[in-house]
């Protein structure tokens, strides 16, 4: 066990960005702490410094003027309970509502779940299917990264050492979407297979989460004229699933076919 990490607690975004630029990878960013806390308890992470965003103001807003803007520090529970999200992006609200337990959802944040890039989290697949982008800030400036370009592997993102996620933007407009979480064990478990689908006119996006190192999207297989069953089988064929305690690769392949079909049936008609 290493010494107590240094606790950095900036009181403004500018201060946070300065600290991030100065300390870079050495300072592990903490928002709700549900991910970092577990890794530290298990001895998998021993940061020399923790950069807490808890006191940074104005990162916890939910705004919906056309697009949906979720501040990085909005909790899962806040997304789940937001009336506007439930009304206009119900599948998104659902993907946050099925994470673990209320105790976890009261802590875990929108920015955190993306920056962790844990393959078995629920929201990233849904955000990918909805075409969301992460707004990322550094002392050098701001850029937007589509979620499917942000998460690139196991716990791996394209965030630069000095960047922080400050907001997530989800396109508005007419769409039909669904999120299905298949659990092989308890209700509070992470998904064995997660399927997020979204259709905007002829644009169909099918994303499968928790089965590989990052959310799986195959635009070429998302033929809006194919049947749900065909797309399910095509996804099961295209994905190289991993094996873990929640299911073997072979088992996941079968469940992918079923759950993709079911998700597409939910938004049919």
């Amino acid at each position, binding site marked *: 066990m290493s010494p*107590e990490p240094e606790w950095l607690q900036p009181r403004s975004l500018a201060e946070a960005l300065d600290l991030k630029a100065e300390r870079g990878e050495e300072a592990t960013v903490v928002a709700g702490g549900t991910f970092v806390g577990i890794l530290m308890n298990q001895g998998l992470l021993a940061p020399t410094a923790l950069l807490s965003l808890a006191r940074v103001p104005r990162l916890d807003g939910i705004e919906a003027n056309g697009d949906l803007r979720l501040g990085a520090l909005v909790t899962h529970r806040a997304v789940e309970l937001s009336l506007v999200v439930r009304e206009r992006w119900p599948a998104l609200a659902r993907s946050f509502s099925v994470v673990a337990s209320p105790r976890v959802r009261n802590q875990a944040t929108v920015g955190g779940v993306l920056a962790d890039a844990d393959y078995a989290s629920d929201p990233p697949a849904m955000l990918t299917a909805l075409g969301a982008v992460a707004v990322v800030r550094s002392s050098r400036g701001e850029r937007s990264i589509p979620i499917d370009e942000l998460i690139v592997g196991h716990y791996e993102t394209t965030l630069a050492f000095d960047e922080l996620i400050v907001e997530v933007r989800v396109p508005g407009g007419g769409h039909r979407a669904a999120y299905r979480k*298949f659990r092989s064990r*308890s209700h509070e478990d992470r998904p064995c297979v997660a399927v997020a689908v979204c259709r905007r006119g002829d644009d169909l996006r099918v994303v499968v989460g928790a089965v590989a190192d990052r959310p799986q999207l195959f635009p070429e297989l998302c033929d809006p004229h194919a049947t749900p069953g065909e797309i399910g089988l095509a996804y099961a064929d295209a994905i190289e699933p991993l094996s873990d305690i929640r299911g073997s690769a072979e088992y996941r392949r079968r469940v992918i076919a*079923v759950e993709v079909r079911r998700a597409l049936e939910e938004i049919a008609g």
Partner: protein
Amino acid sequence: MSDPRVTGAVRYAQDVELPDMLEARIVRSPYPHAGIARVDASALPDGVVVLLPDDVRGLGVYGPQIQDATVLALDVARYAGDPVAAVAARTAREAEQAASLIEIDYEELPAVFDPVEAAGDDAPRVHEIAEVSENEAAYFDLRPQPGTNVCHRFRVRQGDPEAAFEECDVVVEETYRTAGAQHVHMEPHASAARWDGDRLEVWTGTQTPYNLRSDLARIFLMDPERIRIVCPPMGGAFGAKTFVRLEGIAAALARKAGRPVKCVLERAEEWQTLNRHPSVIRVRLGAKADGTLVAARFRCWADTGAYADCGPGVAQKMGFAAAGPYRIPHVWVDADCVYTNLPPNGAFRGYGQMQSTWARELALDLLADRLGIDPVELRLKNVLHDGDRYCTGEEMHDCHYEACLRAAARAVDWDDARRGKGVALLLKGMQTPSRAEIAVEAEDDGTYTVRCATAEMGQGAWRTISLLAAEELGVDVGQIRYAVPDTDIGPYDTRTTSSRSTYVMARALREAVRDLRANGRRGHGMIEIPGGLDPDTGQGVASHHWHQGAAAAEVRVDEETGKVEVVRLHAAIYAGRVVNRPGAELQNEGSMIMGLGTALYEEIDVADGQVTNANLSDYEIPAFADMPERLTHDLIEREGADIHGLGETALPPVPAAIGNALASLRLHVTELPLAPEAVLCAVDVREGVRA
């Protein structure tokens, strides 16, 4: 209402603070089986106290039933997690940092992780010898098998099943398996020790203060009377807090430090401390065409891990309860308790009888299917009634198996439709023989103090015994004070296990109150329960009285994914007379929910001898959202009946009822837990797309 458990006022063992106390951390072997070549603690800073194998080499070898344990692994580490050294410092964090500076060289040895393989002649040996313990917890004759990893073999020999199978119209045979499980008690193991000259005081979360005291006496080669054990209430135990756990390390460190030492486990260490026995059980069951059971043969392997602990007792109960509450003229059982290089397995709510119930009750439904007889009818035809003899030769009394089964079947509307429904019956033994004592003292202010060693672990025993005392004394329960168990002050009790405390303490209390009335200030009551079995024939008295219960389940199966949803779950248990109704109801519900976890989710995952899911994210227990749509139970009482223990009864039949509900859909899964992947495989087998 200010329940001290809610306000945080309860002082658990982990809250104990003593002047000048140090906190300890344990250094554990990373290898499942390895020689310890060198231990070097020279890099440790001043001010920390380190306990190394050479420090404990001169101490006694201990173990409740087999003497196979030392305070630290001396020359060989036998499982990944075996304590090799320990460090005490001002804080647990400092101790942890110091512990990381200890250098240990290991030489890996061949290891074995499967009980059937481990029982074979060619398996790597976990211990060279298995010396039978003289501890009072070795309450039956032990039969270690020399030259093998089998540290106890229990057998039942009644009739001649092999010959009788020849005369059966139908014989079924199947092998069943159950996974290892963690107790997941909320409060981790915690112990604090202090030496005062040649006296040792220990504050610890334990269900077995007197067994602990005698083993500590063995370790420190001292008179048990010079050891004091105090048992604060526990935040859950479920069998995990039995016999010596951290107490030996805390006490040895405290002696070396010359200061009190406390040790509290991290959650992950619980999986390295004590778990439930994985099992393999082969069943052969034969009947006449009319459903009359004729013969049964059981072969059980209980994987006790690297140290026997009370595994021999677990294997014995797994074995003697295997035949279940049925009249079967020919029964042979061979139950082996087998060492492997896994973390130790010991007492766990249900104590081996969940495992054999799972195997037998599934085999019975297989038999019912082959006979074309309704599973409830088959059971009713053979169920034990008053005056019947069990396979141990003992005559059965106060039998209510039929009532339990009928109540359970009724709760799931068995007669309306059978698809997706299953039932299971349980017969479970209570610790026999055993002894319990209790003292009742009249105080000057008109109140009474009750002293006994019954531990409070969330089961409500202190409340229940206080209610009994109030009833016996004819006073309000508010007049009763239950003293925290303390071996210096309170009288002897065998232990708080096997759902025995309410029954035995109620009887001892009656004596104590009679004595108090005769003698004025202090009354003492004692009850001794005789009995026991011959381990080579299984004949004798297995249980002074039997825990009786049934479960019924209705499931919905997603046949495209194999996911099982339990829609209805009911347990009906015989309670005799209920003393503390809210407590009894919670025991039933808690047992059923724990059974649901065993049935569907819980499995200690091991790869190359390493537990891979030693945390509560990767090891799943049931959550509120997993509760069946209807979770109900019965406490069956009888006018004038004795109290019956009920802390475990509703657990063991639950997995089998769910397994049989799947079998009613022709989905045959023989291994617990019922993972969707295994259920989907059973769908494939039924559909003929997989062999």
